[in-house]
């Protein structure tokens, strides 16, 4: 078990390196000069030269990459071109907001997803199943920025119950009020996907021979539910892990709709301002989140499913 964990951790190193290469080259492959946005068009040539040197952009790309990587590993992602503040500081602040939003959205989405999915599986083919499956389908197919706008119109504009813009400040309660609408909006996709996963996994299990066998042993429904839950957990956990990953990645659209100062909003700003160090920093940070999250899900799976441990 310990060896398995070590091996899984070692496996993530090449993945992380590959991710770093991709996210460095992605930005440099994009057309346009990264510094054109900050350098005035009529600046004298020597000033332009000095700025390019200051950002190290006169050196060959591989050298730039290793220099960047070397600093990134030490936690230095450079300075934002637009604000002049350290990239890590900008990202750190945004991450906090996105994390809170993701947590709230995941809590809502997973709770209802598991509830709805289990309900649908137990009442397969009946009206409650059809209703819940319909909700799940709506959750995954509705464009969530549109849903966000709709919620803003209803709850902020017409009813005036909740604020619609910004991250809020001051007391906990005030901040929470700002969180409600974006969290509900963000929860729809994970809710739909978790519902569908739970429904199909649990339905498969309920129809399987071993559940018949459990009933033949005289076990009651709570014991059977326990068996089914432990069997469904690896699949459902994997899906929830990935969904949480997507949430942590932040949603450019939803965060922009609500002006929620998270990573999605920051990424959006960085793209439009062609703020290369910030952009690279955000992409790298978010990718590393995914790598770490996948690792965590894998490890959790082995905890629940002894069959995974074998290989």
């Amino acid at each position, binding site marked *: 078990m310990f060896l398995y964990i070590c091996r899984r951790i070692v496996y993530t190193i090449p993945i992380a390196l590959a991710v770093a290469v991709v996210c460095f080259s992605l930005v440099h492959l994009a057309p346009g000069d990264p510094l054109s946005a900050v350098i005035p068009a009529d600046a004298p040539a020597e000033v332009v030269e000095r700025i390019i040197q200051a950002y190290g952009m006169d050196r060959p790309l591989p050298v730039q990459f290793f220099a960047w990587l070397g600093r990134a590993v030490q936690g230095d992602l450079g300075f934002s071109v637009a604000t002049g503040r350290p990239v890590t500081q900008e990202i750190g602040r945004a991450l906090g907001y996105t994390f809170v939003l993701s947590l709230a959205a995941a809590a809502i989405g997973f709770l209802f997803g598991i509830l709805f999915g289990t309900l649908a599986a137990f009442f397969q083919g009946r009206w409650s199943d059809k209703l819940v499956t319909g909700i799940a389908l709506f959750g995954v197919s509705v464009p969530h920025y549109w849903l966000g706008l709709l919620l803003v119109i209803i709850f902020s504009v017409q009813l005036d119950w909740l604020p619609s813009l910004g991250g809020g400040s001051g007391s906990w309660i005030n901040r929470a009020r700002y969180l409600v609408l974006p969290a509900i909006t963000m929860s729809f996709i994970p809710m739909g996907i978790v519902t569908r996963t739970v429904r199909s996994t649990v339905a498969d299990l309920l129809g399987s021979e071993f559940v018949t066998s459990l009933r033949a042993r005289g076990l009651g429904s709570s014991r059977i539910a326990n068996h089914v839950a432990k069997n469904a957990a690896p699949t459902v956990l994997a899906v929830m892990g990935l969904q949480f990953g997507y949430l942590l990645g932040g949603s450019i659209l939803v965060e922009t709709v609500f002006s929620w100062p998270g990573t999605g909003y920051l990424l959006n700003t960085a793209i439009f301002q062609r703020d290369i160090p910030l952009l690279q920093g955000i992409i790298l940070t978010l990718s590393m989140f995914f790598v770490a999250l996948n690792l965590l899900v894998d490890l959790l799976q082995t905890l*629940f499913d002894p069959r995974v441990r074998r290989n």
Partner: protein
Amino acid sequence: MDNIVEVRDLCVTFKTSEGSVYAVSNVNLDLAEGKTLALLGESGSGKSVTMKSLMRLHPPHKTQITGSIQVAGRDVLALGNRELSDMRGKDIAMVFQEPMLAFDPVFKVGDQIAEVVMRHEGCSYEAGRDRALEMMECVHIPSPRKRLDAYPHEMSGGMRQRAMIALALACRPTVLLADEPTTALDATVQIQVLLLLRELQREFGMSMIFVTHDVGVAIEVADEIAVMYGGRIVEQGPVDEVMTDPWHPYTQGLLGATVYPNMDPATRLVSIPGAPPQLYRQITECAFAPRCPHATDECHDPLPPPTQTDQRMARCIRLPEVAGALPRASV
């Protein structure tokens, strides 16, 4: 002698999207205490459905069961859910065909056995584990203490089936249902598991219903035999009588198509032409008639009451003239 299992006029119908499936029709079964009854038949003949009905394991809202089922003095079809699950695994237990599928893959085998003991005897986890160990020894699993902590996928096929038997017998059931317990196993392991079942049956004084499609296995384990075809019992009686003097042409066909102990080595095997019937309608005539070498026009009329003696029964309109006619290939 008292019958521990009595089934009268059992009919099982499944409702599917394509209509009703008449899986089992008018089945009568008697099982005396300490005896073994073999249910013999090919796939889809209704033998497993009959077995699962004895424990009411079919999904209730898709299944219609009529008739009466008495197990150990209890009217199974009248039991409430609570009494039903009290009975399952305690008075009547089942060994499944494919132990890999019948064990929960993510729980340790020993814990699954302990769980059943805890459920029915209200004992502690430790006591349940002790019983599990005792049962593993009982079914001759090597190094049983170590195997308690094994997961089902860590065992070989034969060992898994032994563990399944240990699980089924953990609460000392009076009736054991074995649903093709040797079908998924290697030939050499099959014999071991058969012998084990027979040994344990004597040791525990259980009655057993043994479902199989293998005539040789039926001869090996059973006292009584019931041959099923198209959801009905076509022939029933003591196994040695039925095997030496089969009345029904289907039983004759089965015997003519299989190798079994003490057969004449010069005999050629003859297969039964055609395929088993579809059960999407209620078959009132002889279901075997389309494949039967002795069939005449009257065989397509509704079946008359079965031909019956004290010990034996067969459902064929052409009895007694077709009795004992084993199919022989011309050499």
